[in-house]
């Protein structure tokens, strides 16, 4: 089992959850709004619609310090005890200085190493391909999962979820959830085997089972969850945790699986606008590090109405938080791409390009991609991840600067932002893939080629050869 690193004492976290300052949840939510607003003012953090990829290092550093201030003043809320878990600046600094400097996924020839990326880093991002728990059927689960794992740029992968199992609805807390969760783990490994990649790391081997008992039940090597795979533990809402999540942490600490923190604050929600939500997202990384003992982090900030992170404000938020993390910490974090439009649409291809450029140049690894607002059954495929990852690689390899990236991304955003509210849901997997051969249709391939020509004319080198991924030896 790989060394997980040194983290803040988890038992002390539980103790603080049991004995911290009591506060009503509604009051905590209000306090967050007040503090976030105050921090935004004090640290002079301003969203700039014409500079979605800011070049101002000072701004990134102020976002970091603002997040520290919010985290220390607000604390983390435990909904089961209705108390706040508080930390000192010294504890936070200690945890940051001891955060893992590398994280390994996969086995043997498929071993990949995640590392802290930097702003305008020319090292390509590690790409964690994922169907982000899109709802599918049992029959389509393996072909859809294969469409992700077979992609050459997939360094790790995770899958969709099923909503019914052997004719029964997969219901939270039921025996079916446990059965379906075990099936989910088995089928993810089966898809990897079918794709000729039996040793690839599955960074989140459980999407169907949500409850802790179902998740733990599915975590068996004999089901295909190998050492070097992982699980993500989410914050349940802005800066909140509960015993259900903390139980997962308690299990994972003693398991051979990589622990990832998963954070999705809503822009427009309790932390306010893009500035407040940026601070809140960054503060979630401290939550993950200190409360969840997270070895690495996944960020999916979401627009409260459009349920994506490709609007102008969201791309600014993604960029500024990535830069703040990259400049001030060694935390290893991936940006989850959430698209408004669905597969095989012009809009989704442009959204993927804009997000991948913004995230890569700002220091993130990439976790593509939820599409069609992550809510429409069967509307997901590996092709979206391919597009996102190829753009990410080319962004890094071409040495794109923030200034150049900003110019290109602004052009892309301008082309689709008016469609946000009514973004096309696109095609289902069966409509945009040859399901038997697990291959994108000519229509989808042609659409991507057409878009690449357009991007070339915007100044993005969409034909730059991508180096063969070197894996293994970990």
């Amino acid at each position, binding site marked *: 089992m790989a060394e997980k690193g040194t983290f803040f004492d988890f038992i002390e976290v539980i103790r603080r959850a049991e004995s911290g300052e009591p506060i009503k949840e509604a009051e905590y*939510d*209000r306090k*967050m*709004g*007040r503090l*976030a*607003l105050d921090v935004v003012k004090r640290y002079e953090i301003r969203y700039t619609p014409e500079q979605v990829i800011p070049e101002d290092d000072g701004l990134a550093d102020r976002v970091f310090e603002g997040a520290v201030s919010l985290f220390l003043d607000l604390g983390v809320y435990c*909904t089961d005890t209705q108390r706040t878990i508080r930390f000192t600046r010294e504890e936070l600094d200690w945890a940051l200085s001891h955060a893992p400097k590398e994280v390994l996924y996969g086995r043997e020839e498929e071993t990949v190493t995640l590392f802290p990326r930097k702003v305008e880093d020319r090292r390509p991002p590690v790409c964690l391909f994922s169907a982000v728990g899109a*709802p599918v059927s049992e029959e389509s689960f393996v072909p859809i999962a294969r469409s992700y794992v077979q992609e050459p740029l997939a360094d790790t992968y995770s899958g969709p*979820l099923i*909503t019914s199992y052997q004719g029964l*609805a*997969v*219901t*939270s*807390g039921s025996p079916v*959830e446990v059965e379906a969760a075990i099936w989910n783990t088995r089928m993810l490994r089966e898809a990897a085997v079918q794709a000729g990649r039996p040793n690839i790391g599955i960074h989140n081997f459980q999407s*169907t*089972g*949500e*409850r802790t008992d179902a998740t733990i039940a599915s975590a068996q090597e004999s089901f295909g969850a190998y050492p070097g795979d992982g699980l993500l533990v989410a914050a*349940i*809402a*802005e800066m909140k945790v*509960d015993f*259900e999540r903390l139980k997962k942490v308690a299990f994972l600490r003693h398991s051979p699986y990589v622990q990832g923190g998963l954070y999705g604050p*809503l822009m*427009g*929600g*309790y*932390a*306010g*606008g893009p500035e*407040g939500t940026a601070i809140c997202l960054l503060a979630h990384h401290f939550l993950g590090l200190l409360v969840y003992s997270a070895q690495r982090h996944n960020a999916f900030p979401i627009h*409260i*109405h459009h*349920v994506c992170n490709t609007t102008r*404000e969201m791309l600014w938020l993604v960029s500024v938080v990535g830069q703040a993390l990259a400049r001030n910490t060694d935390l290893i974090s991936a940006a989850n791409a959430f698209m408004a439009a669905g597969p095989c649409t012009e809009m989704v291809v442009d959204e993927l390009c804009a997000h991948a450029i913004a995230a890569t140049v700002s220091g993130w690894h990439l976790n593509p991609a939820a599409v069609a*607002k*992550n*809510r*429409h059954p069967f509307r997901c495929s590996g092709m979206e991840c391919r597009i996102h990852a190829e753009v990410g690689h080319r962004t890094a390899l071409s040495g794109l600067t923030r200034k150049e990236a900003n110019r290109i991304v602004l052009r892309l955003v301008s082309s689709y932002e008016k469609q946000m509210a009514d973004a096309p849901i696109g095609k289902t997997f069966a409509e945009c893939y040859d399901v038997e051969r697990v291959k994108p249709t000519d229509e989808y391939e042609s659409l991507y080629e057409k878009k690449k020509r357009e991007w070339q004319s915007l100044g993005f080198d969409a034909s730059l050869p991508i180096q063969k991924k070197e894996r293994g030896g970990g």
Partner: protein
Amino acid sequence: MGLLEEMAKVVIEGDEERAVLLARQALDEGLDPAFAIEKGFAKGMNEVGRLFESLEIFLPQVILSADAMARGIEVFRAHLETKGTRKPDKTVVLGTIQGDVHDIGKNIVRIMLECNGFTVHDLGRDVAVSHFVEKVRELSPDIVGVSALMTTTMVHMPRLIETLKEEGLRDKVKVMVGGAPVLPDWASWIGADGCGKSAMEAVAVAKRLTGLE
């Protein structure tokens, strides 16, 4: 600026103290409380809803506005009860379904419903189907509103509808569902009466279901 416009403005600004002062002033000037609420505070809150929909303001400001309106209405309450000129509020029993702890969407819907004159009984999150049914029987609401963020919990929604039928309550209450994975087609398939994609849409659906619009 007239008094009613001023009342709308303080709600938009989320100024609780001024809301209380203006409500007292309205009473002193002999304004009908129901009229003052509708043409003053509620008008301001409608504008808050519009500003939130276009994200010109964010949830913390919406909460402040809702607080200001609630404080203002509190001043009128005794007079509303004695004069009886205000139409009775429509009532909603609201909650996040069994097994689901994600409640930000439900909370926003609650605020917007309250600001639009509905009386909301918020049961919180992870609410058992049996508890929803119990509250429907006890409170006889116009609507029961249920939210879910996960596919594994939204499947409790049809169970709720079935149980309401079994208990002979289905014809007495409208069922409104919502949440990220809940699509209108599915809502209609399970026999729900309405489904809102956003908080503002939920308010529109609630108004339609209760004959307010």
